[in-house]
């Protein structure tokens, strides 16, 4: 019983953090929300995977947050990220989109549970919320940090669901590498073009 309550609390946390990442423009808040989101993901993954494998996902997620955070700290032009005035990319529009994602999740969770029994309602709801939030995020932005956050969010949702059907150590390891690589690639793309040519090889 208490486990179910915590699982539903994790789903609530996922809703809050994914909405924060989607709506908030400050990179510190977004990355903080992503770090908290990985705790909720960790809990939902432990429903189907052993504690050690789930904690690997948590640590990887935090490493990704650290990589992106350290990169953003070095980039001055990210400090003053102003609100987009175009309404289709504005905060209210994003909030409405997130509301739609939440409604779809509520509507489809029971159906998914019926077709794939044993996953657990909180696991399905958490996974679908994150996948929806990630896809919405990718649809409304072309900003590099936001794209990285969208992809990481979407992958986190997928990992929750996939953990329920595949418990291979190799897959967990590969997914950790994919997550970490996404963080590093996001960081690389953020810094690309910000420093002048230095070596002859780069010419």
């Amino acid at each position, binding site marked *: 019983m208490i486990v179910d309550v915590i699982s539903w609390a994790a789903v609530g946390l996922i809703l809050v953090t994914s909405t924060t990442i989607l709506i908030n423009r400050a990179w510190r808040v977004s990355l903080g929300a992503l770090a908290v989101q990985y705790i909720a993901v960790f809990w939902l993954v432990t429903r189907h995977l052993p504690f050690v494998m789930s904690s690997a996902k948590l640590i990887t997620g935090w490493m990704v947050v650290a990589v992106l955070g350290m990169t953003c700290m070095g980039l001055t032009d990210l400090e003053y990220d102003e609100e987009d005035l175009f309404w289709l990319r504005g905060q209210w529009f994003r909030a409405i989109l997130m509301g739609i994602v939440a409604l779809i999740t509520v509507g489809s969770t029971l159906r998914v549970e019926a077709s794939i029994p044993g996953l657990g309602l909180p696991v399905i709801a958490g996974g679908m919320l994150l996948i929806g939030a990630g896809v919405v995020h990718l649809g409304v932005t072309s900003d590099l940090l936001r794209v990285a956050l969208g*992809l990481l969010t979407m*992958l986190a949702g997928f990992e929750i669901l*996939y953990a329920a059907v595949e418990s291979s150590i190799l897959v967990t390891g590969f997914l950790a590498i*994919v997550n970490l*690589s996404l963080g590093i690639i996001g960081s690389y793309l953020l810094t690309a073009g910000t420093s002048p040519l230095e070596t002859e090889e780069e010419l």
Partner: protein
Amino acid sequence: MNAPILWIVIPFMIGILTLLFIRERLPALIGGVATGILALIALAFPIDTALLLGSISIKISPSIQFFGRSFELNTADSPLLVIIYGLSALWFLGTEASGTANRFVSLGLMIVALLTASIAVEPFLFAALLLEMAAMLVIPLLVPPYQKPGRGVVRFLIYQTLAMPFILFSGWMLAGVEASPGDLGTTTLASTMLGLGFAFLLAVFPLYNWIPMLMEEASPYETGFLLWVLPTFTVIFALGFMDHYAWLRTSAKLSNAIQFAGVFMVASGGIFAALQRHIGRILGYAAIAETGLLILIIGLRSSEIVTITFLTLIPRGLELIVWALALSIIKRQAYSLRFTAVRGLARSYPVAVAALILAHLSMTGFPMLAGFPARLAIWQELANQSLVTSFWVFFGMLGLLAAAIRTLAVFVMADDDKKWSVNESWMQITMLGLGVTGLFILGLFPQILQPFLANLPSLFDHLGQ
């Protein structure tokens, strides 16, 4: 010695070491020679068979365990390894001639090693993860540290990452479909997810918009490599799916859907290529049309699928090397690949221009060139199945031919008083010459591929049997 260590771990380690420790011109030579040697080993030493060399017995064992799963390269994989590492050697040796940065070889080696791992991993479904890792390694190739990333590379990253979950999930669902084929809901969901996954991976219409964008933003040689390496392994992965799941092989609806996607790509790629005014984008659309052809082949209801696929894949590798190398040489001179910038270049860069046009013509299926035998085989199969499909494929190829003629017209449109001169370096002339010779040899004597093509169907248990 172990096959996965030899063809996966060693090239990956060489890639890391050359990236970290070696500068100047050595990486091209190291990468080219290393992959060449790996291709020769695959050709000369059968896997899992003991060979006596004097008093020494050598046996390459086929598999290795890694985190509870197996990576396996069997005797049947040998021809594929020869093709992959042989073509990789050409790409890496061409680096010096193309003026590409040295990290191309290092990252290229790692990418090829990861993709080789994708054909070795058991269960084969996990290849989706390795394809994603390889796609991410491509990003530093496309975006040098001093250049702001464009929209094309961001879209490429998004699409490749979206593909992975779809494929992994669909693979899991397909196992359920095999167990209860009457469940229409699961069947439809699994096929939709699988279709979406491969649509993202293979850049099926309308998800191919990143390709022409990349051809404008990034270096043509690196983008050409990407357009060769990822679709090649993705097609092999797709054939693996067809081979594993009987339902995919036998579903007429799915076959029609795959054929439709392929034909749409061939026709749209050809038409768009004919309308471009940028020779880089033309290469992008030609690659799209060629990928469309490969998808079309997968959708054919024929026992020759595997043979025709590899008959198309091998020349495609050579065509793209020659085309991308010629584009790189031209771009170094003209800075832009727009028609206005490359006008009249045939008189100052005749070898590069000739190679580019021949590679382009080969991709349109021009007689005597490498692409012709594969096109002939495709026409033969298509004509038996659907004349409408044949017409649209012909239309797409016609578009590519129109693009080739337009490009040639722009290249030769020079002032009358402009003198002919050869400005390519000896290295560039040698590499282009080798490539063009290869195009003619494959076009005139396609039977030299027969030893490879005869054994490749054994890669699969059910396809092509």
